[in-house]
């Protein structure tokens, strides 16, 4: 069989990287980076997830068609997130930041552009 066997050395290196990533996320959460706190947290999480997919899940050594399926999942997720969020972002409706439920207009579903 010609399958690629990932050596324990690589697994332990990835494990160490994931531990560093976890420490970094917790540390970054206690710093005030303003709007960038969430960007930093998600970037670290994405790097960690990518390491898990590439090495623990052997995606790096998988056949091309398996890699295509993996890329597709990210692509379809991006479509779902992007189209839904653009819809929410471009409407002005009852979900306004910091607006009290009691202060909202009487007709809750009247969308005002």
């Amino acid at each position, binding site marked *: *069989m*010609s*399958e690629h*066997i*990932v*050596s*324990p050395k690589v*697994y*332990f290196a*990835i*494990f160490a990287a*994931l*531990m560093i990533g*976890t420490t970094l*996320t*917790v540390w970054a*959460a*206690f*710093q*005030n980076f303003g709007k960038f*706190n969430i960007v930093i*947290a*998600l970037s*670290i*999480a994405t790097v*960690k*997830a990518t390491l*898990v*997919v590439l*090495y*623990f*899940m*052997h995606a790096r050594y*998988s*056949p091309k*068609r*398996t890699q295509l*399926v*993996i890329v*597709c*999942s*990210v692509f*379809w*997720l991006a479509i*779902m*997130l992007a189209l*839904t*969020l653009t819809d*929410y972002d471009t409407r002005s409706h009852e*979900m*306004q*930041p*910091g607006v*009290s*439920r*009691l202060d909202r207009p009487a007709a809750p579903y009247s969308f005002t552009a």
Partner: protein
Amino acid sequence: MHRTGDLYEQFQTLEQQKETATLGMWVFLVTEVLFFGGMFLAYTINRSAFSTAFGIGSNTLDIKLGAGNTVVLIMSSLTMAMAVWSAQVGKKQLVSIFLIATLGLGTVFLGVKAVEYKQKFDHHLVPGHGFDMTYHPTHPMPGDDPKELALEKKEVEEALAHDPDINFHGQLYFSLYFGMTGLHALHMIIGAGLLVWLIKGSFAGRFTPQYNTPVEIVGLYWHFVDIVWIFLFPLLYLIDRHR
């Protein structure tokens, strides 16, 4: 279905059989990505609308338990990967040892989760009739840090001034918290069941360098569940920690 040894008749080689099984598992994992993706989407929309309530809700979670559980889960991913390696190089005894370690770490994770859920019930932070974010700061439990509690009290009061409906919007945060971590825990329980099945197989010496597809496939599932937690941890536990 007819098979010769471990090879089913529709495949030419064991390698082709394994590649097919792996591809099938990945297709299932794509559906899982979109399934959890929907929950992350609901989370994103509600968090952007009710950021105060989400921040205050997040700060009530125990960061030590959350971070500790993250370490436990990543360790279980390592032992799972090592179980796959042991099967690939034909170390039958190590396969069993690493699978048992993975199951053990998974169980620890679920145990800690249960402790966290219990705390939320005690603190009246479960969505529904008794939900009250002002309850815990005014009703100290044994073992609470008074300094921490005073801080929480101040935070809830400030939040109330900013968002008088904090108890409505806080329930959104905790609904998502229980929904997302609950579904994640359900996946862990299913994974633990699969591990028990694998451990049985490994005791029977079923997994060899030629045939270890079940270990590999369950491994993929287990790592996927790990990835979901890698995103859940910062999104649920680490909102507004710096304030």
